[in-house]
């Protein structure tokens, strides 16, 4: 089952996808004003920090201090290993037994930690590499737009940029507040608090920041006192956060920490939920009905938590870790992608939250719903290979369009990263149909995508491109949930002639088949 062969071929060079209308994707070649709403952040316009914190140490001259001072500084900077290292290094000043002893302890510590990290190789990564590894953003470290978040109720959104600032755009206001904070470094994810107008949670390298940006304020630079700092020892870097749909709790995850934190943001207190297996938590996704949470780990294992009593189901994968996942709007179905595999799996949960027992009867095994293995399309400009591993998944809030960001291969020119969009139907049975590819300007690859949470006329996919442009691709359709579709006429019925090969009618996956 190769799903991508049924897709309409990709656009020729120079064409960009504009929107979906009448059941087909429209494209245009006029790239400059493709969409009046699109934002552009050229890389040159951002003032970047050229140095990292650790590299600044070498820039200063060495200055002889007493052993005590150096030990204290080493203890402060590097903890016990740092102290031992300092003592071992200055063996001319300390008694011989102390230097030898600390050297032995240091060797023992290193041996233990190497043993530990041979179990969990991700622990050897630096913070930035770790965020890049586990982020939902493709090639995060090189990205101009590092995170993007639509407000769940209104038309405003927040953009985190490479220069560690966050800008908030609101169509109803002329001010675009810029958020900067001392601790706001290496933003991995952002999310607005549901049922609230102002709170924005930001996952940073060392903490979680919760900004309170008053929507009526005219200030362009809210002070850092508007931000709450939520930090917990050993819980860094934070790579994923998730608000509960009721807005009461905030979850945060770090690959370094085996427990995920449940924050009561107002009280700034947290409850760690610890499960040792897996070695950390990389990605969180809260189901829209609030009943389940997907938590993936750096190992080939992910968990699905049930949010009433906070018990979890373990789901071991065969090949690699769970890279991404998304929930259907009713929270009954989870689609996920595994690293190293080119398929999308589905899990179905009996969405009956009323049963008194806390453990929900889940499915026994995941079903493969789509195969995205490499497919060659013959276009005018030559062969184009599409398919491969999946970077992230996004499902529109009505459950009608599923966008899949495929990684591609940067080494091979004709295998770009691309977004494949499926049409989906969740009721009465789950169905998957091809829709098309979303492409940008030539030589520019998609990095990050998100659906607008309440777009009136269908679905609106926001794509952040590697050039720093943020574009919105609307999918106009009438939702099948509305019973009057037959009367007003489904777009596909009105224009049945326009396509010789009606890809839309060829179902890729239905539950009846499987």
């Amino acid at each position: 089952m190769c799903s991508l062969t049924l897709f309409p071929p990709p656009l020729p060079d120079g064409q960009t996808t504009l929107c979906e209308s009448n059941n087909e994707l429209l494209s245009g070649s006029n790239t400059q004003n493709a969409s009046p709403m699109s934002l552009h952040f050229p890389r040159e316009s951002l003032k970047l920090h050229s140095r990292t914190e650790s590299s600044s140490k070498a820039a200063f001259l060495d200055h002889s201090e007493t052993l005590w001072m150096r030990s204290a500084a080493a203890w402060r900077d590097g903890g016990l290993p740092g102290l031992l290292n300092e003592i071992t290094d200055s063996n001319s000043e300390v008694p011989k037994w102390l230097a030898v002893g600390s050297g032995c302890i240091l060797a023992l510590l290193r041996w233990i930690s190497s043993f530990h990290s041979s179990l969990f190789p991700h622990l050897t990564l630096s913070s930035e590499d770790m965020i890049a590894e586990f982020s939902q953003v493709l090639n995060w470290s090189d990205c101009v737009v590092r995170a993007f978040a639509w407000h769940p109720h209104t038309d405003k959104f927040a953009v985190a940029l490479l220069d560690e600032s966050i800008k908030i755009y609101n169509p109803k206001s002329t001010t675009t507040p810029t958020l900067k904070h001392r601790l706001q470094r290496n933003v991995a994810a952002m999310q607005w608090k549901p049922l609230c107008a102002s709170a924005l949670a930001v996952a940073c390298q060392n903490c979680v920041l919760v900004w309170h940006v008053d929507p009526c304020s005219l200030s362009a630079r809210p002070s850092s006192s508007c931000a709450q700092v939520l930090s917990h020892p050993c819980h860094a870097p934070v790579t994923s956060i998730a608000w509960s749909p009721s807005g009461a709790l905030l979850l945060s995850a770090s690959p370094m920490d085996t427990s995920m934190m449940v924050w009561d943001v107002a009280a700034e207190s947290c409850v760690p939920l610890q499960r040792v297996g897996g070695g950390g938590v990389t990605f969180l996704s809260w189901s829209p009905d609030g009943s389940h949470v997907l938590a993936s780990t750096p190992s080939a294992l992910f968990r699905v938590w049930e949010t009433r009593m906070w018990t979890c189901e373990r789901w071991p994968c065969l090949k690699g870790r769970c890279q991404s996942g998304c929930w259907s709007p009713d929270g009954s179905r989870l689609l996920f992608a595994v690293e190293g595999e080119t398929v999308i799996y589905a899990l179905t949960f009996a969405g009956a939250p009323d049963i008194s027992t806390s453990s929900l009867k889940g499915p026994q095994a995941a079903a493969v719903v789509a195969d995205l293995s490499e497919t060659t399309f013959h276009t005018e400009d030559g062969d184009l290979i599409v398919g491969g591993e999946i970077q992230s998944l996004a499902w529109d809030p009505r459950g009608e369009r599923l966008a899949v960001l495929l990684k591609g291969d940067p080494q091979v020119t004709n295998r770009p990263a691309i977004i494949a969009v499926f049409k989906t139907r969740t009721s009465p049975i789950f169905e998957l149909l091809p829709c098309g590819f979303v492409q940008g300007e030539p030589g520019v690859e998609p990095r990050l995508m998100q659906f607008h949470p309440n777009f009136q006329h269908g679905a609106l996919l926001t794509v952040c491109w590697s050039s720093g442009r943020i574009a919105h691709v609307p999918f106009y359709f009438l939702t099948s949930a509305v019973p009057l579709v037959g009367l007003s006429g489904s777009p596909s019925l009105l224009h049945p002639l326009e396509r010789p090969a009606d890809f839309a009618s060829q179902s890729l996956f239905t539950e009846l088949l499987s």
Partner: protein
Amino acid sequence: MFAADSGCWFTQKVLCWRAAASVAWSVLLLPASTAAFVVLSKLSVLHPVQMFADCVSVLLSAGSVFSFVLLAGVIIMVGFLTFEYYTVIPSIACSKVALLGQLLHPRQLLYCLAHGVMGVVVGWSCAVTIGYRYERLAYLCPQKDRDGLLHMCLNEHHLLLLLEGGFVGLSHSLLGVIQNLNYVSFGTVQQHKYLCFKASLPLAAKCSAAQAFYSVRNFVLLYFFLGHIPRAWMCKSLSLHLDSSAHPLDSISGLLDLSLLYLLWISATYLLFSWYMTLLLFRIFVTEAYSFPVQSTFTEEAPQCLPKVLSEKQPMILKFLALQDLSLLSQHSPSRRSQVFSLSQPGGHPHNWNAISKECLSLLADLTQRLVSYHETVATNGRTKSLSSGSDRKTSSESSGTEDLASCRPTFLMKTPASVFLRSVGAGPQSPLTSPFTPDLDSPFASPTLRQLTSPVDPGSPWHGVVQSPHVMRRAPKLWSTSTDSQRNGSPPASPATLPTPKPESSKPSFLAQFFQNRREQLPEASSQALFADGQAHIWALDGLSYLVQASFTEDQFGVVQTTLPSILSSMLLLQEAVDRHFKLPHASSKPVRSTISLGDSSHKTLRFALRATLKTAIYRITTTFGAHLHAVQLSAEHRKRLQHFLEYKE
């Protein structure tokens, strides 16, 4: 007394069992911690085999069985005291004098005394378990006296362990008052008891080790200076002698014995850990969610149903558990929600919904009223000394023209609202006005029932519907204050309005009076904390109401919620207004300092922030669910305008 009975069934059938189960578990876990203690006390790296043999022999000896029974008794006693003294509404001292009052309350003294005695018992058990030179209180003196007779000598090491146990017990109970150890808070998320316990175990170990370290440090210092007193007393009362060849322990060389210090620390840790464990288990068991039936087919079970239980006053935890259950059922349980929305058969009245919504609304109204009257008091009486911002300065200078310039500290302090009220608490007839502001015990002899006054005032009480006139508010307490305060500790009379010039005694207050006056100064933000002490109940009420209203959009077949929607919205908006105004006061929005490592629950300090967030979320939940339909709801113009802000996501 039907109502009293219905509260009683809960205490008898649920609370007692939960407390008993928690004590039973802590007794069952005692062998494990005792074994760990024995291993740690016999620790020797060089002779592991001998250490192991020692440990086994100690654990199996008859003496250790006896001391274990004794320790189990102590644990049961601790559990009983925890059950007697726990509270779900923290008692927040608004001033340092009030805190002192709490500490010196007879009930509290009894508690401390019991803990001191139990500490001595644990110290004795530790000494017996450790063995060696610590085992006995007396031993045969090595030297004969002048008559050639052998005497019994006092073993100071044993005495040291006993005293240390007592000291740690006492300091634990005193610190418990300051850190609100007896306050039981409800968790953010529901978890199974075992997982809760497992998660809190490392914290308990860390806290007990740290606390033991500080306690031992203080004890050693104390013993260094005052150690000779208990030693001499012991010798005299038991007619023991002092061993002149042994080195006295209340000296630097005596106390700088590393193994002695280590054992002191280990035994203090053991004591605190076993007690903390009991406390933790009690908290976990007693706050476990309890599912009340929404309605019952049998009339005799009616008082145990949720609508009835919600309106209970006593015990307080019953009301809290009922509200928690309401909030849980409104979120997670469609079938129980349908019972809430159902109509009575026969009759067709929505009794369940009416009772639930009425109780929740009265809780909210009570909080609103409390906030409004507090705000008025602050506005008319002025604020604390340190703050003199624009409008406030005007009001305070209106009332005390000349003294403003004199800046006589004691008189100026009088203007803080809580100090005004505190005085009238001790004045005998409890002014109903005091209840919302001072849930603490000012005088050592004030009745402990004061604490319950923070609970919602029932409509029958005189405070309900009291005239909220600033004149009444200002005058009534001040009239009391002039007479009572000078009577009690000779401090200067307070009311600046009635006294244009300070009396001679106020110009030269005695040192003690001055000291007390200074201590009486409001702790920053304490009064704000005290206002929201029972905020958890309001948070659940808001959650429960808003989730039920949200669910009613699709699940309420008979439209029972629609009839109350205007009152729900208006009471939430009123509360929102009052909360907004409250947060404009100084100190109200300042965050409490992060507490250092301690098992005392500091969640009550942030309840007001949690309440503010929950309130906003609750209103948003209703507005997002109903959307434009809300325009059809009957509301006042002001509320409509406010609601429009929420509909446009501008709050």
